[in-house]
């Protein structure tokens, strides 16, 4: 539904903002002021459970960042930094990790943070009854947690896991009160208990979640700009699914911060002194089109390259995203420090595409201008998830459809809702697909390109949509996942990325877009460098 609205909205919104919204200069103080309620309006789906252990998706991560905390976090340089754990060390054999916990940390139900709490959390995520997916996958190598001393939690592993710290920094593995976890799942979903700067007080479905300040808060991550309780007295976390009314609410001052800001809105907001943009691309994979190498015609690398050469991505990104998105030539998000970029592999070149198709035997054309081979048309099925691809991205696919038609590709775009889209993927009825994937650290490469990821789970879900099955690549990725030497690991990840990019398995587009827009009265708002969720801990209102 949202998708239907937006194109119309964009035109109207641009026209209107051009017509002039008044720009008033807010009084700008530099000294943080305590108090006030911040209204946050999210366009992400309303979570069905506020405990991110259950399931584990981005909407949960967004809100949980306000009341739950993890053992470690990440700074903007990409280094792991202390949070609930002050220090950590890996055993020489890589089969256990010791985390020293911050002292005197209390959950908002009054219980203390102890190694036993960590054990209870890991057990909770690993319990099938919790139905955790994201957290569960991240803890696959963890066999248990013990307490060698009163403030040390020891993780024991089945095999060394170089991604463990990255995994533990994610909100889906945040630490909750062990006492609270013992309640029924329904109750814990409604009022999860953490150590965070805010406390969930009330969840009015389809409307909002009320959060109030945790006055005895003492455990900010190492990169926070202050200590002690948060400045804001409360947060009103509202669910506003429609992007146009969300922006209108921000302009009217009904809300202070919005997420899921669309490209046209970003451009419109640029002229306003009342509004500030916060760009926080998500970690993990770049947004990319994946070419299914398991079935014809993309089982031939020449046809994959021909498609990539025939797609004029740059012009489409420029016109449809108005300069708000930067073209990517990498398998990884630009926030991942181990990413490599190969622009020369992705230059737009119709002549090269035509030559490659001739070589691959697609040398004849039918009356409609599409290439054929032994009577078969060069046709590509492209199921598009209308839940995951924003309107601008869907338009981008249409433009690529037009440019690759010049080379003789017949791209069939099929807009589908999420369930139907997973259905098409599970049946291997696609040649092209685009799916975002958020995860902290380069181990996402293993998720997306290891041959193990081509086997659909019973639900039909699998992550390796390009269906890359390359034993050499598998070996690299599996080795990198166990190495504790950072330099050696980096070199393996670079080699792995080269294989993926040079094999023309993916067509990178841009980082996974994640823009926040807030009123200028909101100060000190930042996105966590982990999964780019906003944190209100350092925020204050200068009204």
């Amino acid at each position, binding site marked *: *539904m*949202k998708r*239907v*609205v937006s194109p*119309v*909205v964009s035109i*109207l*919104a641009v026209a*209107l903002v051009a017509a002039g*919204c008044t720009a008033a200069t807010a009084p700008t103080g530099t000294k943080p002021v305590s108090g006030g309620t911040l209204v946050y*309006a999210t366009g992400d*789906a*309303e979570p*069905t*459970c506020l405990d991110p252990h*259950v*399931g584990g*998706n981005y909407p949960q991560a967004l809100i949980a960042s306000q009341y739950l905390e993890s053992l470690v976090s990440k700074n903007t340089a990409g280094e792991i930094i202390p949070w609930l754990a002050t220090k950590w060390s890996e055993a020489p054999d890589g089969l256990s990790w010791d985390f020293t916990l911050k002292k005197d940390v209390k959950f908002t139900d009054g219980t203390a943070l102890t190694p036993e709490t960590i054990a209870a959390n890991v057990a909770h995520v690993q319990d*099938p*009854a919790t*139905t955790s*997916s*994201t957290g*569960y*996958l991240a803890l696959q190598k963890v066999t248990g947690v013990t307490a060698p001393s009163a403030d040390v939690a020891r993780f024991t592993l089945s095999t060394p896991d170089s991604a463990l710290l990255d995994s533990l920094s994610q909100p889906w593995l945040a630490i909750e009160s062990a006492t609270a976890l013992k309640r029924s*799942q*329904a109750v814990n*979903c409604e009022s999860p208990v953490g150590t965070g700067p805010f406390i969930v007080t009330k969840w*009015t*479905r*389809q*409307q909002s979640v009320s959060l109030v300040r945790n006055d005895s808060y003492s455990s900010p991550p190492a990169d926070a700009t202050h200590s002690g309780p948060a400045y804001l007295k409360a947060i009103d976390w*509202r*669910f*506003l*699914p*429609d992007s*146009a*009314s*969300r922006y*209108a*609410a921000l*302009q*009217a001052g*009904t*809300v202070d911060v919005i997420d899921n800001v669309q490209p046209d809105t970003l451009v419109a907001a640029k002229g306003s002194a009342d509004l500030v943009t916060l760009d926080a691309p998500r970690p993990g994979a770049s947004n990319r089109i994946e070419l299914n190498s398991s079935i014809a015609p993309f089982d031939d690398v020449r046809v994959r390259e021909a498609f990539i050469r025939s797609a004029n991505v740059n012009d489409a990104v420029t016109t449809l995203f108005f300069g708000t998105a930067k073209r990517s030539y990498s398998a990884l998000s630009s926030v991942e420090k181990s990413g490599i970029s190969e622009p020369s592999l992705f230059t737009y070149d119709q002549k090269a595409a035509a030559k490659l198709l001739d070589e691959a035997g697609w040398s004849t054309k039918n009356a409609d201008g599409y290439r054929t081979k032994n009577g078969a048309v060069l046709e590509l099925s492209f199921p598009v998830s209308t*839940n995951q691809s924003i309107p601008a991205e869907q338009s981008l696919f249409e433009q690529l459809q037009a440019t690759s038609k010049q080379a003789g590709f017949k791209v069939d775009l099929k807009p589908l*809702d*999420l*369930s*139907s*889209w*997973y*259905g*098409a993927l599970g049946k291997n009825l696609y040649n092209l697909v685009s799916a975002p994937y958020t995860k902290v650290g380069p181990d996402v490469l293993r998720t997306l390109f290891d041959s193990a990821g081509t086997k659909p*789970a*019973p*639900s*039909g*879900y699998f992550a390796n949509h390009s269906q890359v099955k390359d034993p050499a690549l598998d070996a690299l990725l599996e080795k990198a996942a166990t190495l504790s030497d950072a330099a050696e690991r980096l070199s393996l990840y670079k080699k792995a990325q080269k294989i993926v990019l040079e094999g023309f398995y993916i067509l990178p587009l841009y980082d996974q877009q994640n823009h926040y827009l807030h009123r200028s009265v909101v100060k000190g708002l930042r996105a966590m460098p982990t999964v780019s969720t906003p944190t209100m801990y350092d925020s204050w209102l200068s009204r």
Partner: protein
Amino acid sequence: MAFVLWAVATVTFFAIRLIPGDPAEAILGGPGSQASAAALAQARADYGLDQPLFVQYLHYLGRMLRGDLGTSYALKQPVLAVVGENLGGTLLLAVVSLIVAAAIALALAAWSAQGGRVASGVSWLLEVIAAAVPHFWLAISLILLFSTTLGWLPPVSVPGPIGLVLPILTLALPLSGFLAQVMRESILDAIASPFVLAARTRGEGSGGVFWRHALRHAAIPAIGLAGWAFGSLISGAVVVETIFARPGLGRSLLTAVQQRDVPLVLGVVLVVALGYMLVTTLTDLADRLVDPRLRAS
């Protein structure tokens, strides 16, 4: 009535299971949840999804007969509770919108029937435009005009009557276009009919003719449309509740369909069907009140 409900329940039950998507996924956090095999098997067993579809259907009918609509897969709450929580908001929206639409339609129809050629032309144009405008477009236009530009009304729903103004206008304006078209025709018919001429010869003034005779005549087709109008308001509520971020049945239904939350979809559809039947029954009664010919028969 029971037959209609059974038919609605049956068609919806099979329709939602025909579209792709696994309800077990809905239980485990939505499509693409990456749920493990064990978790999915557990969920299927817990919710009886491992049984043949027809057996599931019989179980479902059995529970429905006992008044148990089951538990929402995604929300993990009883469907009756979810529906109960959201029914009020949507009903309020639908009922007020219906009244506002009828008032606007009446005003337009009266003006155009009595105001000569210009009035009739202008109101005809307004009616056609209003009836043709899609809800989502109207909603955004109203927000841009009344919130962003003029700053008179909140762009998203806030507590209190002021938050209801834009959602109600969005629903009422298109409906008023339809109603006005129908009412104007009947008013013109009535004014030209012998019984009005008879009334005039008895000395009735033009106001009396209009209010006592023509209007009554015009109300009949409008009342007949009320059942249809209710249905259109509920479908409009899906759009309006999403854009204005109002809690309600429309939004519940949209999310439930997207998540393949079978029990909740069925619950909402059943309640809407029940509402539709109630409104139809009420319109029959209202028809009898307004139209003496029906009472005689």
